[in-house]
């Protein structure tokens, strides 16, 4: 009887030791596998040449007041609009407490050049390119841009005013590197 007891004890002892080894080996194995998988997952992230297109320079000297141009940055359209006085005033006059994505016009343009509105021309809903760059385009209910895909309306500051998009059109990092040259990115 006494013997049986010690047997049982040593067996229990074995089991906890085995459990411990099993758990540590398992944990190391799981971390190792995750670490080994990461390069495979990461291979699907943008490649070096895609990232290399990260900055673009553009000369806006020829863009008259009331005109707009669309350029390509990181494969995406970027809207550059030379706003009219009225458009700027309209944008400033909006009471931002009623907006979905509360931003004052001054937060979206350079202080000394409020006439230049630079935005990624990709609807923040699901990624279509809104209309409004061309003279004949529909500009939506707020005189800015209109996304035809599911009907988002943006104002003259590119802020979302109506429709399903959650956010204002994105303002990319940009600066004037000369009087008429903008560097985006």
């Amino acid at each position: 009887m006494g013997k049986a007891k010690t047997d049982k004890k040593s067996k229990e002892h074995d089991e906890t030791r085995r459990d411990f080894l099993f758990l540590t080996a398992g944990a190391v194995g799981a971390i190792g596998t995750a670490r080994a998988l990461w390069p495979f997952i990461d291979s699907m992230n943008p490649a070096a040449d895609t990232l290399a297109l990260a900055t673009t320079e553009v000369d806006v000297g020829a863009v008259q007041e009331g005109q707009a141009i669309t350029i390509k940055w990181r494969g995406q359209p970027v809207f550059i609009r030379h706003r009219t006085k009225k458009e700027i005033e309209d944008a400033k006059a909006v009471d931002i407490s009623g907006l979905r994505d509360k931003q004052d016009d001054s937060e979206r343009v350079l202080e000394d050049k409020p006439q230049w509105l630079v935005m990624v021309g990709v609807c923040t809903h699901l990624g279509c390119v809104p209309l409004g760059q061309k003279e004949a385009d529909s500009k939506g209910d707020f005189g800015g841009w209109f996304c035809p895909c599911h009907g988002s309306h943006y104002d003259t500051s590119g802020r979302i005013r109506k429709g399903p998009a959650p956010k204002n059109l994105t303002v990319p990092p940009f600066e004037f590197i000369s009087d008429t040259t903008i560097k985006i990115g």
Partner: protein
Amino acid sequence: MGSGERIKFDNKVIDWVDERLPVFTLMSREYGSFPVPKNFNYFWNFGAIAMFMLVTMIITGVLLAMQYTPHADKAFDSIEHIMRNVNNGWALRNIHMNGASFFFIAVYIHIFRGMYYGSYKKPRELLWILGVIILFLMMATAFMGYTLPWSQMSGWGATVIAGFVTAIPFVGESMHTWLLGGFTVDNPTLNRFFALHFLLPFVICAVVFLHVWALHVTGSNNPTGIEPKGPQDTIPFHPYYTMKDVFGLTVFLGFFFGVAFFAPNLFAHADHFVPYDPMVTPPHIVPEWYFLPFYAILKAVDFNIGIPFTDMTIISSKLGGVLALVGSVGILAVLPWLDTHPVKSAKYRPLYRIALILLVLSLFVLGYVGSQLAVQPYVTLGKIATLYYFAFFLVIVPLLSRYEKPLRMPPSIHQAVLDSKKSKNAGEAK
């Protein structure tokens, strides 16, 4: 499978192989003498038809892949090359392109059959869930296939659908970039979609195998929803249902080839024949018809869900729309637990039957709304239909499970068949 008694075959070669790998025993047991309820109607053809369509898609797909170039600069032209230069390339492409539509037609009817006759109920829950997984995989496959021609619809459809991912809080943006391999739908996106479009159909094959395996464990349901009680209720699969399936398939192929060869662009959009321009969205992008109802559900959620009387948002309209869209398909998977009514077939459940027919109606309404711009009256119509769609699963079906009184049911399949013969004869005698 593979275990149990082996059948003895007269042909020596077959018997030799079967002794070592019992594939012939398996085939004859699962497809030859396999006992099946004797009262199937034509709704029971669509599983076999869907299987045929899967094989058709794989054969035409592999042949197309031999001629197609998955590069942003060449993809569109390579499709034109297939249409104009490749021997019978036009046929391959038209069969593949319309095959996707007819594959969905078959599968949607197949799912409706399951819902009408209660095939998802115990003991077939897992069989049903495997079916829902196949549906998801098919949707992913068809979506990625549609980007391959690199048309305006391809590129912008991919943009909108990949945009769903950005609705995920916090990690959405980086997942989106990871998925596309860039900041927009571009060459890396096309390449990976091609690889996945090639791969997924074979994953579907594997799940179909499990689906059929599960079917052969539980046996088929039938129009009465009463389980077979003995040999008087069943007949062997071959030759009775092999014949019926061949007949049904032939009729189906009549429609399929009619469209593929005589109206190949019936389901297509003009913008699918214009090369993709990443700088210009076409004025009206719509998905393929088989996604329209779900697309309408996405569009129906155009409001934020927040804490009342504050302007805190819990679920933005964008996330809400995507959740509703995924949920509208995913909810099928839990149907066996939402509908706990003991009677399977809608034949004996008049209220469930009406509710189900209204569900189909709401899907047609949603399909129509999905094809229209987001203007009135479509917006309201879409919201009503979406509301009904979810109410069906979350309110109506659970309530009916508790309160619906079924009609009087025949004691067995055999008796049901005899009764229907009798009433038919009586009708003729009049």
